[in-house]
């Protein structure tokens, strides 16, 4: 079935030129008066309905980055020199050389708003979208991860949203056949009306397989393949992700339920076919250019492919296969129906292209051709309905330098020093504090979630949750692999977005290094409130500056990312929550290091400096519901040195275990390592037990040294100037802290594992 009945009511280019006064619903589509005027200026007339649909999608905050672009350019300007970068920002995803002829591509993206409206499908299609981004680069997607943030774990709505989101990720990722190798789960009241669902995908290819998203060569054919276009997700990008919930406008429209049809519906089976189909097309050399269809659907794919290439493209929009024959051109252009790709193929390859699609049961249709006109032209049953320079939508969208101002509340927040909070002062109180933290929803065992994800499929998962990072084998023979971690801490960022973002970067960097992998590149998902709020915009600017400076200091470039604004409920924005993903290369995954204390008698050594740092800490949050003061000090030189020790320690076989210290400090790290390895440990703390157990000083890790190699490891740490404090030994049936307490493993396990099942069933 092809699209729509022919109606004389179509708004053609000729009609637009003849009816300049015709009133158009641009404001409802999210465009301002000035933006609408600019479209008229670009075209020399009013846009047709179809053109208006294209501009509305492409100039939405989600697609155009109009509020963030002025800041994001720092990622390129401050990027450290890196020989590893094969493709960077501006591509669908960055591509990194990992050696031996392999390249990996990875990216993280938000699906926050759809996941609140319809958790299951919202989260499912978030996975689908990021996987197609990776596929479009020419890579085979090989794993996914998810960074999830919800409102209070015991809030009634969290019981709607969390199981739905996890179920959606499970449904889509498992059926697609991609191992889920890690991620995050945390809770805070600020996410109650606006959960964060950030999905990451990583793909692998050979160097020569990199694909371009540029429609070049007039006469080449434009093929749309995958699912049919339906009325689902119409305006998803512009409507959902570019306005806040609970605003008066949303309520007039009937509230959140009115937006439900804007959420796309996923078909992971079709996506699996699309993946295998594309990889076979690539291998056969049948693809000249390709782009996935995500936000703004055909509008985005057509304008971006054309703008990046020769500039001209002709599309017969009525040939687009549709699921609903009543869909007209604007709906077809704005639909965000899932599991679709757009490719450019040389005419001599079209027959073979369509045959590969048929083999995989994937519908494919030639809908147009590349032209030399420099214009994107679309027809509807022969009538010209779009005639525009594609770059005007794809590249030359509005750029706003939004006003920004440091909120007055920032000083008050910093002044609320947690150092005045009542602390546990004796052994039993410290013991209770540890068990309380270990059982708190954000730090509790996440098996309830991760057990719903397939981590085994494809047979290359070396480490997955609850390890510090996911680790994948890439080459069976050499053991080459990649490690990935995502981290973010909204509490730190609300205290200081510059430092908080660097702490997120440092934590992910540390997590990757803890496995023995060398950090290579960075992706990010920047989740913030409304950019129209100067306070939020200040947070955003500080976060971007912090990340760009941090990446320069650590020598790891940002290869791509995603911005999600309007994460707020009414006037209340979420904590600024940049989520940072770090990818590292592991020279031999057989030498990976786990967090588990699995060797009795091995020394437990703490690396790094510990000071009393409680601002934004898990202890202050869980025990006192307190947020204030300064986040931990950032020392990126110390992070580099620590990572160097961890990487060399793994390479030289000196380490049995390594676990980064972050939320909950040494107390939580020791408990997790004991539970993971199934062995206890006995440690002696060199100073004030509370500080040593619960401070969240950065640039630290706890390691377990292979017996007999203690001296070699001490020399290694000293050589890099990393303080190494011998704490004790692995062994016994519990976590014992001399002069304080001992907790049997069974009691630790009960506290750790009981929380999420009790909450979610």
């Amino acid at each position, binding site marked *: 079935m092809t699209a729509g009945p022919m109606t004389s009511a179509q708004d053609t280019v000729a009609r637009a030129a003849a009816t300049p006064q015709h009133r158009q619903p641009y404001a409802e589509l999210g465009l301002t008066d000035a933006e609408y005027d600019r479209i008229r200026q670009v075209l020399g007339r009013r846009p047709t309905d179809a053109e208006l649909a294209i501009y509305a999608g492409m100039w939405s905050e989600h697609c155009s980055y109009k509020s963030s672009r002025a800041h994001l350019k720092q990622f390129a300007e401050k990027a450290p020199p890196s020989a590893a970068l094969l493709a960077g920002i501006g591509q669908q995803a960055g591509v990194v050389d990992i050696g031996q002829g392999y390249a990996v591509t990875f990216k993280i993206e938000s699906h926050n708003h759809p996941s609140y409206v319809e958790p299951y499908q919202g989260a499912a299609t978030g996975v689908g979208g990021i996987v197609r981004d990776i596929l479009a680069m020419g890579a085979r997607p090989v794993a996914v991860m998810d960074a999830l943030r919800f409102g209070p774990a015991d809030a009634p709505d969290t019981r709607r949203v969390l199981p739905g989101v996890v179920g959606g990720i499970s449904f889509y990722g498992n059926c697609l056949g991609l191992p889920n190798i890690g991620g995050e789960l945390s809770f805070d009241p600020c996410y109650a009306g606006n959960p964060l669902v950030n999905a990451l995908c990583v793909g692998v290819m050979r160097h020569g397989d990199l694909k371009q998203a540029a429609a070049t060569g007039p006469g080449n054919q434009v093929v749309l393949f995958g699912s049919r276009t339906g009325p689902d997700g119409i305006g998803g990008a512009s409507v959902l992700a570019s306005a806040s919930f609970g605003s008066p406008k949303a309520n007039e429209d009937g509230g959140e339920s009115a937006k439900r049809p804007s959420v796309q519906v996923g078909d992971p089976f079709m996506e699996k076919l699309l993946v295998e189909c594309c990889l076979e097309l690539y291998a056969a050399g049948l693809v000249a250019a390709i782009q996935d269809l995500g936000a703004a659907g055909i509008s985005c794919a057509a304008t971006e492919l054309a703008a990046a290439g020769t500039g001209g493209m002709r599309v017969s929009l009525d040939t687009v296969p549709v699921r609903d024959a009543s869909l007209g051109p604007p709906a077809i252009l704005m639909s965000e129906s899932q599991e679709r790709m757009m490719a450019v193929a040389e005419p001599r390859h079209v027959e073979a292209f369509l045959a590969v699609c048929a083999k995989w049961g994937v519908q494919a249709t030639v809908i147009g051709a590349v032209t030399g006109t420099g214009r994107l032209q679309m027809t509807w049953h022969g009538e010209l309905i779009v005639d525009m320079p594609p770059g005007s939508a794809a590249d030359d969208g509005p750029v706003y330098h939004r006003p920004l101002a440091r909120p007055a509340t920032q000083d008050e927040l910093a002044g609320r020093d947690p150092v005045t909070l009542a602390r546990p002062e004796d052994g039993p109180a410290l013991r209770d504090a540890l068990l309380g933290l270990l059982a708190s929803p954000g730090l509790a065992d996440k098996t309830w979630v991760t057990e719903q994800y397939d981590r*085994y499929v494809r047979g290359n998962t070396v480490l997955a949750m609850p390890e510090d990072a996911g680790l994948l084998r890439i080459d069976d023979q050499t053991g080459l692999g990649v490690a990935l971690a995502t981290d973010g801490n909204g509490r730190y960022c609300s205290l200081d977005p510059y430092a908080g973002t660097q702490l997120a970067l440092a934590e992910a960097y540390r997590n990757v290094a803890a496995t023995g992998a060398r950090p290579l590149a960075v992706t990010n998902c920047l989740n913030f409130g409304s950019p129209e709020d100067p306070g939020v915009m200040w947070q955003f600017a500080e976060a971007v500056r912090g990340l760009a400076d941090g990446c320069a200091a650590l020598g790891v470039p940002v290869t791509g990312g995603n911005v999600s604004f309007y994460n707020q409920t009414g006037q209340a924005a979420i904590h600024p929550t940049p989520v940072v993903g770090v990818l590292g290369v592991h020279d031999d995954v057989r030498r990976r290091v786990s967090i588990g204390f699995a060797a009795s008698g091995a020394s437990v050594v703490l690396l790094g400096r510990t000071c009393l740092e409680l601002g934004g800490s898990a202890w202050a949050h869980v025990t006192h519901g307190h947020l204030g003061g300064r986040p931990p000090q950032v020392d990126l030189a110390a992070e580099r040195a620590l990572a160097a020790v961890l990487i060399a320690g793994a390479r030289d076989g000196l380490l049995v275990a390594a676990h980064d210290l972050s939320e909950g400090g040494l107390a939580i790290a020791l408990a997790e390592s004991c539970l993971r390895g199934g062995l206890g440990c006995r440690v002696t703390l060199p100073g004030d037990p509370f500080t040593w157990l619960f401070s969240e000083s950065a640039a630290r890790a706890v390691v377990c040294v292979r017996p007999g190699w203690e001296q070699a490891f001490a020399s290694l740490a000293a050589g890099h100037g990393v303080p190494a404090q011998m704490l004790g030994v692995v062994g016994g049936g519990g976590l014992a802290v001399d002069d304080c307490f001992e907790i049997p493993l069974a009691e630790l396990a009960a506290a750790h594992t009981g929380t999420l099942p009790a909450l979610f069933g």
Partner: protein
Amino acid sequence: MTARVGVVTFPGSLDDADAARAVTLAGGQPVPLWHGEKNLHGVDAVILPGGFSYGDYLRCGAIARFAPVMTALVPAVRAGLPVLGICNGFQILCEAHLLPGALTRNRGLRFVCRDVRLRVENARTPWTSGYSGGQEITVPLKSGEGAYATDPAALAELEARGQVVARYIDFSQPNGSQANVAGICDESGRVVGLMPHPEHAVEELTGPGRDGLGFFASVISALAAA
């Protein structure tokens, strides 16, 4: 001569590469078989791998049983070709009536990915002869519809004939399977269906151990002995 073990790829098969890797590690030669071909390419045994064949639409395995490759496979199996169905492959074997019973939604109604302890109850099939009867092994289970169900009389018959090949022995039974059934075989023993995934337990590096390798090594030895 190296045993040639076919691994069928249906649209939506996911663990086909893993099954092929396991065959290789066990010393066999994996042969890819395509769902759309009625040709078994002269293989000595066949594995129906895990995944979501045809999206598991309608019912798990219900569409796959009508695939062209099945029209070649069913008579070959009846004539003595050993076949192992893993997870979705087990579901397909049940739908194709090569094995009795059905796999239903997990008791908790959620997908479960977990390393499970199994007891090999029948070590006389060509797929389990490398184990000893009663041997306990650890392999991953990962499924949403893994609860084996049949009527009491049929179950009693399966038990009486030793057709329960493997059983869950975890104290927290993962999916509500009747009589803790993890895998069964037909009367000949050559057709085995297993819900857990032995192909994900063939290397220390990527699995909970190497306990699953025995299924693949068993059939290769059995074929060599035949």
